[in-house]
């Protein structure tokens, strides 16, 4: 649909557009992180493109891509007036998530405010120039970023002390049909547990 946008981006930004592809009608451009804000400004302000609606922003972790940027920040945009879409990607951060930073685009689309906070909360990407970069889904006491692949799958960080069996005075072991860990058979039962401080 908006092959036009990809052409314009390539023409205007040249080497800062690392790769583009259009599969199944989804036009995607991978952008050099340093050009992130400039590309976004261009997409918003060019009258023929006019991407006026920020649809989504999320982070995807690829630990194997540590050299080219482990965390892929994916942005979806839509133009209400031109009725076309584009997907932008930027790859940031090395294997320890050092340098996982992008310019905030809240000044272009105010709606990106909470989405950027979500990506910061879940994936640990810092958005420079964001007016209020706090956690949005998790609580301030939470340590780490749960959607990074290095976050242990079983690690929870409870805010209240869990009750012990002595305290409760009744057995807390679940009866049928609940298993000790969860209620459903397709849980993580049978896999080795990750040891945490609370075990």
């Amino acid at each position, binding site marked *: 649909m908006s092959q036009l946008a990809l052409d314009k981006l390539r023409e205007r930004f040249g080497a800062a557009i690392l790769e583009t592809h259009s599969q199944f009608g989804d036009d995607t451009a991978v952008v050099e992180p340093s050009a992130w804000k400039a590309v976004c400004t261009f997409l918003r302000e060019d009258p023929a493109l006019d991407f006026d609606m920020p649809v989504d922003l999320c982070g995807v972790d690829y630990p194997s891509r540590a050299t080219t940027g482990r965390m892929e920040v994916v942005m979806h945009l839509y133009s209400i007036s031109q009725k076309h879409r584009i997907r932008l990607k930027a790859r940031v951060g090395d294997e320890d998530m050092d340098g996982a930073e992008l310019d905030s685009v809240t000044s272009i689309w105010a709606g990106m405010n909470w989405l950027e906070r979500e990506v910061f909360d879940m994936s640990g990407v810092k958005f420079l120039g964001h007016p209020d970069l706090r956690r949005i*889904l*998790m*609580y301030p006491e939470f340590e780490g970023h*749960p959607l990074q692949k290095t*976050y242990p*799958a*079983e*690690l*929870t*960080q*409870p*805010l*209240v002390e*869990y*009750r012990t069996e002595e305290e*409760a005075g*009744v057995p*807390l072991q*679940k*009866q*049928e*049909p*609940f*298993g000790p*860990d*969860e*209620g*459903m058979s*397709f*849980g*993580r039962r049978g896999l080795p547990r990750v040891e945490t401080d609370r075990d």
Partner: protein
Amino acid sequence: MGDVNRSLTLDGSEQGFATTRVDALLGWARKYSLFAYPFVTACCGMEYMALTSPRYDLARFGAEAPRFSPRQSDLLWVVGTISQRQAPVLKRIYEQMMEPKYVLAFGTCASSGGFYDNYTTVAGIDKVIPTDVYIPGCPPRPEAVMDGLMLLQDRIARNERRPGVVKPRLDPVAEAKALVQIRKSAKDPREVLPAIKTEEARSLVERNGGAK
């Protein structure tokens, strides 16, 4: 009401009398006046709405009156997934309720965390607050919830505080095994057909290669 003095004086020949223990009397009274505090957080809430609708008539059990203040309620319905962030709120609500208080875990999420096995979900509210009855199901049917409510009433009447679990009325695993057994044991699958009453079902079995 008539003559107060008369109604207070039990006359054996005229009105009869009954003996009971105080705790049994209290249990009996409590079990039919459960004021509910619905703590509804997720999809199970839809089933809770169905449950409180006239079709299921919760008033039969004396448990239909919701009170949106924990200080006025005896029964805490925890309906839905409880996240780590919500656990302190739930605990606070529980602590604000007056004794005697009861907690009912509605659905698999509230009972054990359900299929959420992750960084943000509390694996069952009994990690945080005492729980009297667990109702499995994702979401449980209103009938299952009423089973749970009756289980709770039974426990209240007997003054028992050990947690109880609603047993499924129909165990899907056992059912499936029985079906497989029938299929295997019949030499000619047509043998099972007489048990299948409707034309529709018969043709379905036949189309699936049932009758050779």
